[in-house]
């Protein structure tokens, strides 16, 4: 691989593909983006994401690299697309699950415990409803669809061609490497990639205002509510070991809506704007990989951490082809 890379192809306009295209463009590489749909949209699982940039909260169940690499995300997205809200994350537990809050605190860092008054001061609509909460002040969130669209527009404005079509067979000396960021669509090439189904809802509830994402600790589903502004909320997300992308179950709907209702009864009157189902691409340890096979380089397995890890993955992949260090998430091709 030459030290001065002049051109490259990126497959996919999901969060990984667009972040990598932006990072390569910033470093002076002439990028061509190719996507089956030609633009960010519902065929990419990042379209359905929560958009939480919450590396410390994720530390409860994710491994160390997610916490560390995820801390690059908020700054990167602010520079690359704008629209990052730095308001922290509030973590709450309902009724009989209150003990879960202590366990969550034990397994995470960069938080402080709030009492009744402080919760009310942060989120007036939750005043008096909870005795204790964990506040992760350094965390942030964004609107995934607005962010992907803004990033696409900035790339287009910078002269990056974004083409509609299928992947070319491989890279060439002149065209440079092909970065495959197609997520679960690359499954036929990557035998150890699997789908983890997620279900989400978008609600309109003008009676409730929240300034920041709220996580509800629940023994089975880690439920969160992310404010999108104008009384709109994203509610997610289940995690089911299945690559199925089409169908939500009554049980999932019931569990998500029940949790929202428990957070605030006004959610009982919310309008259901959207029901989304998709599958996240994941490797067996749920950690992302950069994998080279011939002239094709795969960025995949971002699992439920697309917006959180895409900046670090893009940085490392760009380093790889511009003479920088070997990425820590690089793995040997076992195909």
């Amino acid at each position, binding site marked *: 691989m030459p030290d001065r890379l002049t051109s490259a192809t990126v497959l996919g306009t999901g969060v990984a593909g667009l972040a990598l295209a932006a990072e390569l463009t910033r470093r002076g590489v002439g990028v061509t983006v190719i996507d089956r749909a030609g633009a960010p949209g519902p065929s990419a699982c990042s379209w359905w994401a929560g958009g939480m940039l919450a590396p410390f909260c994720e530390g409860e*169940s*994710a*491994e160390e690299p997610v916490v560390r690499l995820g801390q690059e995300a908020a700054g990167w997205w602010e520079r690359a697309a704008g629209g990052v809200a730095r308001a922290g994350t509030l973590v709450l537990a309902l009724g009989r699950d209150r003990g879960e809050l202590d366990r969550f605190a*034990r*397994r995470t860092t960069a938080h402080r415990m709030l009492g009744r008054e402080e919760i009310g001061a942060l989120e007036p609509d939750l005043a008096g409803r909870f005795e204790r909460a964990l506040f992760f002040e350094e965390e942030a969130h964004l609107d995934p669809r607005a962010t992907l669209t803004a990033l696409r527009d900035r790339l287009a404005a910078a002269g990056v061609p974004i083409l509609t079509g299928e992947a070319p067979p491989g890279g060439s000396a002149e065209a440079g490497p092909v970065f495959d960021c197609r997520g679960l669509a690359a499954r036929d090439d990557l035998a150890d990639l*699997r*789908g983890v*189904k997620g279900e989400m809802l978008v609600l309109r509830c003008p009676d409730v205002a929240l300034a920041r994402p709220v996580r509800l600790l629940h*023994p*089975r589903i880690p439920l969160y509510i992310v404010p999108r502004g104008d009384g709109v909320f994203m509610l997610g997300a289940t995690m*089911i*070991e*299945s*690559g*199925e992308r089409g*169908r939500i179950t009554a049980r999932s709907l019931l569990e998500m809506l029940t949790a929202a209702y428990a957070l605030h009864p006004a959610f009982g009157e919310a309008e259901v704007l959207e029901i989304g189902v998709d599958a996240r691409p*994941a490797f*067996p*340890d*749920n*950690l992302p990989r950069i994998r080279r096979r011939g002239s094709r380089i795969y960025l995949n397995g971002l699992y439920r951490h697309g917006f959180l890890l895409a900046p670090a993955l893009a940085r490392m992949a760009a380093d790889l082809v511009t003479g920088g260090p070997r990425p820590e998430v690089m793995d040997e091709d076992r195909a």
Partner: protein
Amino acid sequence: MPRFYGVEIRSRMMLGTAQYPSPAILAEAFRASGAGIATVSLRRESGGGRAGSDFWTLIRELGVRVLPNTAGCHSVKEAVTTAHMAREVFGTTWIKLEVIGHTDTLQPDPFALVEAARILAADGFEVFPYTTEDLVVAGKLLDAGCEVLMPWGAPIGSGLGLVNPYGLRALRERFPDVPLVVDAGIGLPSHAAAAMEMGYDAILLNTAVAKAGDPAAMARAFALAVEAGAAGRAADPMEPRDMAAASTPEIGRAFLE
């Protein structure tokens, strides 16, 4: 080592496959536990058709015997249908039968359980019923054709341990030749050791390992506890008594005050 329906299992530990941080950690926990049987919930993971097959592949690669369950079923019909689906997906006649009767405690519905067990046993299934420690229900399950019983230690996922040791002991004494497994409610390795000391053949657990900070380390801790408890039982423990019994005889002491 325990025998279930004529099959000898190399471990007294059975481990569930739900709620692990990742499939890689699940596999690590299985290796550390030495478990001989993996329970799998068909409903939770299937999603219909081929879509769930990645997960099944992963479970098969663990190299242990699979015991599918009917977790989350609340009626006889649901449980029987799920059992049939499980038989097809996993190619086994083994089924851990769960029929839940109470939403808060996830307590089994003994009436529906016995009925479902009878239907499934008559249909060639080898049923592992998740039941309470009730002696009468246990007898009816055996009459229905079950050759293994799985009484709870405490409600599923509660981690409270063996909340009714008297009942569990009575069950063991009443049915000395039936393989008995404490299923559900185990939170700590000491709970597992206690079940073994009572003479139970095996334990089944999931949450205590999957939700531990380090699932593989906790799986190993449970494996050690199970081994310790079973070895202690086999060594024929002393009988407890109310009064002290000095381990050094008093007679013959050289000086008396």
